[in-house]
């Protein structure tokens, strides 16, 4: 809502500058987003009188104008034709400045000296009149007066950012009431009673409301003998300050009154209303209406229309119809001031994407009493400005049940809720300034709230009014006291934090990507239709296909991140995200989906980054497996299995499914080269996604400690040459079995394939730790056990290397 400070002052004197008022309003609940000067300074542009007009000697389309600007007479060459001798016009004198900026100097135009320029409204920065027409002031404009002052360019516009509960401030009168509540100053109500002629409105027009729910009140007046023309400049200027384009006097007045009272009005050309009859009804299916914006709208029974005896002539509360539009030929108008059902108007405005100043007000609810005030105010102004004769009486179909809200308030409770002492007198003073009616009833106060403030229905609403007008700055600062709350952070919460610490300590950076993804990306992962991850939940109204479904896996989002970073030459990346994926129990959704927290990791490039001192290796399957091992060790999970199975999007022989105690935890694998290719990833990327909830279920977050061994260990190395098909796990298990309880650790410290090793074989070197819990091991104990291990390995096909 744009509020002209000067216009507002017609209804109340705030007693302070526009800026100070804005600050005060903002701190008491009506946020003023900005205060701006209405127009620019126009130094040197003054009111002049046209003294003489002569044709230009050389050019037919130009005129020589003599304009008196008070202290001198200027001769000016002008391209416009709409001025006549005696007109008051805006003269940009030499040296003056116009918006643009444009500097006006003396010039010679086709052989004639021109000392300045006559200005159109556009040249002054106003969206007013035709571009090739000079702006002509009212006859009483003082010659020599600076034009910026005359036009009120020094006025300040306050931009109110209204919350939905304070739509009352969509009218200046109610803004004035708000200022009155802040300052205690008086509100001046403009005159609202029009002079009427003896001819009665009955017989001139009739109104029938068929749906009294959707239209609780409809008033109409008829005004004859109207002269449609441009509004006087002062009226046009006020509308421009409100941000409304002036059209013609009657239409401008309906807008003016809307700005003043917050009540939208509509004017029909009554001679075009068939049967001179207004019917407020639901549209019939397949009815059509061309609205004022020239668009043909298909209507149905959800839309409330204003119709004449035959066809719709307006979409109630949203936009009028072209068929009864006010034109230059109009001489008789019917003014509508009505109240419509907010929800219906809102739906209609949304459905046709026609948010208008009128629909905005109707959908937030208007004051049913103001309907009549605004009706009369408009009639008065039309009579004064458009020279109309107002017929006697108002048609008023009133089904409104609106009554002022009554709220009982206890000053004690006010203090209790606010946590401070506000004296009863102060409470009463605030309520009086709000112009609320007060009845004191012993301790309690009975407040009757005027209809303009329908937002106030509860004691809490009054508490807010008192608090905001008393000043939020006066509220003290205390802390709640009360019983202790235990387990303030859940186990899962702590575990997630622990995992993030392990991941960051392992060099991984945390990412957060959108929870919605492009469905095409699941197809690019080559997931078959039967995969549950293909059953993603679609968003009904996404911005784009990129955000069209809720993710069932974090992988696509992470690959996008990997790709982005590769494109920016970050070739070595360790990334992770912990976040939800969404699993519908059925589609379309009929119950809340399962939101499963997943941990996703990606690794690519050389880790650590190639450097002068520490060897770097390609980030691969084993890098991520190492992180998982840290997880499992820290969480004391030991029944972990890696099965050689791949995902549709991972490398067939470089992937694993991970299980804990038989339950599937997730997968790890190098991205399938085809998939990597379709994401434009020019280097191998390893991905992993595991289920956080299962991990949490299996985790022991508090480590259980065993005593530190008391007896020394014996360490022996063992180098083997083994056929490739024998897995490391098989070797390890074989050694552990043969080693028995004194073999406490088997560590692989070297692996080699290639030269010196026969084709199809590989060499593995282990370090074996032997220890007894009670007593020192002898060499012969260890040698004996080592022999058994060697024999077992030999049976597996392993050869010992010397």
């Amino acid at each position, binding site marked *: 809502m744009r509020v002209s400070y000067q216009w507002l002052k017609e209804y109340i004197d705030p007693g302070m500058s526009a800026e100070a008022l804005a600050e005060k309003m903002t701190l008491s609940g009506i946020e003023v987003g900005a205060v701006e000067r209405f127009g620019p300074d126009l130094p040197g542009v003054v009111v002049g009188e046209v003294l003489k007009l002569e044709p230009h000697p050389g050019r037919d389309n130009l005129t020589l104008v003599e304009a008196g600007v008070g202290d001198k007479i200027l001769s000016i060459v002008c391209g416009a034709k709409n001025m006549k001798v005696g007109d008051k016009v805006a003269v940009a004198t030499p040296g003056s400045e116009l918006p643009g900026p444009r500097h006006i100097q003396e010039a010679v135009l086709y052989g004639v000296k021109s000392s300045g320029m006559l200005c159109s409204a556009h040249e002054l920065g106003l969206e007013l009149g035709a571009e090739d027409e000079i702006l002509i002031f009212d006859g009483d404009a003082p010659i020599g007066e600076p034009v910026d002052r005359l036009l009120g360019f020094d006025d300040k516009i306050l931009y109110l950012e209204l919350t939905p509960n304070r739509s009352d401030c969509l009218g200046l009168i109610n803004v004035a009431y708000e200022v009155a509540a802040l300052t205690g100053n008086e509100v001046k109500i403009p005159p609202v009673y029009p002079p009427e002629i003896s001819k009665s409105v009955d017989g001139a027009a009739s109104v029938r409301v068929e749906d009294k729910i959707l239209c609780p009140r409809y008033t109409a007046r008829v005004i004859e003998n109207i002269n449609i023309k441009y509004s006087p400049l002062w009226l046009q200027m006020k509308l421009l300050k409100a941000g409304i384009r002036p059209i013609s006097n009657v239409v401008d007045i309906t807008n003016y009154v809307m700005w003043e009272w917050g009540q939208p009005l509509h004017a029909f050309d009554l001679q075009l209303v068939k049967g001179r009859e207004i019917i407020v009804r639901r549209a019939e299916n397949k009815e059509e209406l061309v609205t004022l914006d020239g668009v043909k709208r298909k209507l149905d029974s959800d839309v409330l229309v204003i119709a004449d005896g035959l066809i719709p002539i307006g979409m109630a509360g949203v936009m009028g119809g072209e068929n009864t539009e006010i034109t230059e030929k109009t001489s008789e108008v019917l003014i509508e001031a009505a109240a419509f059902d907010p929800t219906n108007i809102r739906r209609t405005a949304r459905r046709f994407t026609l948010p208008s100043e009128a629909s905005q007000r109707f959908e937030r609810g208007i004051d049913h009493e103001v309907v009549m005030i605004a009706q009369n105010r408009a009639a008065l102004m039309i009579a004064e400005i458009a020279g109309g004769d107002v017929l006697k009486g108002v048609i008023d179909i009133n089904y409104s049940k609106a009554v002022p809200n009554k709220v009982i308030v206890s000053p004690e409770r006010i203090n209790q809720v606010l946590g401070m002492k506000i004296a009863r007198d102060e409470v009463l003073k605030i309520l009086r300034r709000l112009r609320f009616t007060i009845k004191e009833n012993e301790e309690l106060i009975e407040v009757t709230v005027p209809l303009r403030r329908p937002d106030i229905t509860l004691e809490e609403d009054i508490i807010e009014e008192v608090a905001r007008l008393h000043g939020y700055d006066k509220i003290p600062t205390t*802390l*709640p006291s009360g019983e202790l709350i235990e387990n303030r*952070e859940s186990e899962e919460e702590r575990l997630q934090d622990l995992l*993030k610490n392990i991941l960051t300590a392992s060099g991984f950076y945390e990412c957060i990507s959108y929870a919605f993804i492009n469905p095409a990306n699941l197809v690019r992962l080559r997931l078959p239709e039967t995969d549950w991850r293909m059953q993603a*939940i679609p968003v009904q109204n996404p*911005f784009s296909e990129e955000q069209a479904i809720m993710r069932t896996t974090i992988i696509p989002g992470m690959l996008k991140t990997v790709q982005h970073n590769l494109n920016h030459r970050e070739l070595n990346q360790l990334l992770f995200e912990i976040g939800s994926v969404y699993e519908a129990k059925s589609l379309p959704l009929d119950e809340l989906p399962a*939101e499963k927290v997943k941990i996703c990791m990606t690794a690519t490039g050389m880790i650590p*980054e190639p450097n002068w*001192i520490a060897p770097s290796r390609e980030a691969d399957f084993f890098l991520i497996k190492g992180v998982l091992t840290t997880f499992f060790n820290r969480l004391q999970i030991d029944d972990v299995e890696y099965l050689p199975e791949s995902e549709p999007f991972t490398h067939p022989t470089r992937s694993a499914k991970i299980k804990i105690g038989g339950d599937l935890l997730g997968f790890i694998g190098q991205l399938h080269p085809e998939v990597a290719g379709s994401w434009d990833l020019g280097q191998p990327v390893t991905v992993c996604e595991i289920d956080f909830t299962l991990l949490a279920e299996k985790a022991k977050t508090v480590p259980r400690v065993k005593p530190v061994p008391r007896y020394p260990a014996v360490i022996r190395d063992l180098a083997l040459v083994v056929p490739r098909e024998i897995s490391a796990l098989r070797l390890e298990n074989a050694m552990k079995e043969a080693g028995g309880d004194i073999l406490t650790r088997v560590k692989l410290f070297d692996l080699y394939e290639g030269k010196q090793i026969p084709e199809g074989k590989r060499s593995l070197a282990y370090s074996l730790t032997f220890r007894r819990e009670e007593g020192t091991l002898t060499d012969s104990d260890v040698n004996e056990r080592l022999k058994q291990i060697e024999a077992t390995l030999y049976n597996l096909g392993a050869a010992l290397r010397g």
Partner: protein
Amino acid sequence: MLQKLKELENDSRIKIDGAKNLEELKEIRIRILGKKGALTALLRSLGTVSPEERPVVGKEANSLRVELELAFERKEFALRDAQKEGQWESERIDITLPGRPGLIGQKHPLTLVMDEIKDIFIGLGFKVAHGPDIETDFYNYEALNFPADHPARDMQDSFYITPQFLLRTHTSPVQIRVMEKQAPGLPVRIIAPGKVFRRDDDATHSPMFHQVEGLAVDTDITFADLKGTLLLFAREMFGSEQKIRLRPSFFPFTEPSAEVDISCIMCAGQGCRVCSDTGWLEILGSGMVHPRVLEIAGYDPHKVTGYAFGMGVERIAMLKYGIGDLRQFFTNDLRFLKQFGE
């Protein structure tokens, strides 16, 4: 006798200083501290001293021995070092070479901020709660006093899944879920961090962002408690000099309601571009829990009161770290992420 000791000390120090190599030093040592050395001889003649003087002289003599031992040791180090001078040079390292790269990552800046917020409120006795990202219309709107087809819903443009289900537009539904579960038990003190979704997309809005919700319900929670809690939060988060300002506002689920500003952290309230010359930055919305909301969630609004607040994590992170574009949080550019620690 004391005089003799003094002389011996001076003489010894001169000799030790003058030693040219280890052999010479060794000889000097024997001559002074050896079995037949000067100090030993002096000590032997202690018997000639009067019984009164004896303890004093004895003590002096012993401490001289200790000091001289140290002097010999220091000189020995110096002579050894001098011998190895050539060797040191051949072992020199270039201390300006970079250190071994440590392998360490970092949490996302939004996580860092959320952790900080959580820590502050856990310290104040709040519990962490969570709710689903996909919500029902009831929890996201109805129960929070947003009637259907009400203009208040325009404040938050929603992504819908079905007419009944939507992506939550704020973390406030967690308020209802927690209260429903706990009612009529008191006190309720929770914070609920999480993702929220709105149909907005530009440099200051993202279709997905993060909020932290706070809720306290008890028999005597006041608006002053809300203000105190938020002041404490602002000071923990942005520094002990922080001021806050409450402005009346509107949220369907709180009454009275307040927008909360902190003094601009860029200009300390002087007025700058970041705060549009107001000296203040809006960081959160808050208020006293609306009686209708308490009622729906199972509490008697005549017997209990509560406060609630909700803050945008991105907004706080942007202020805290000086980040200009909200979308950076979700691009996960490593050149951005690494600035929070590498």
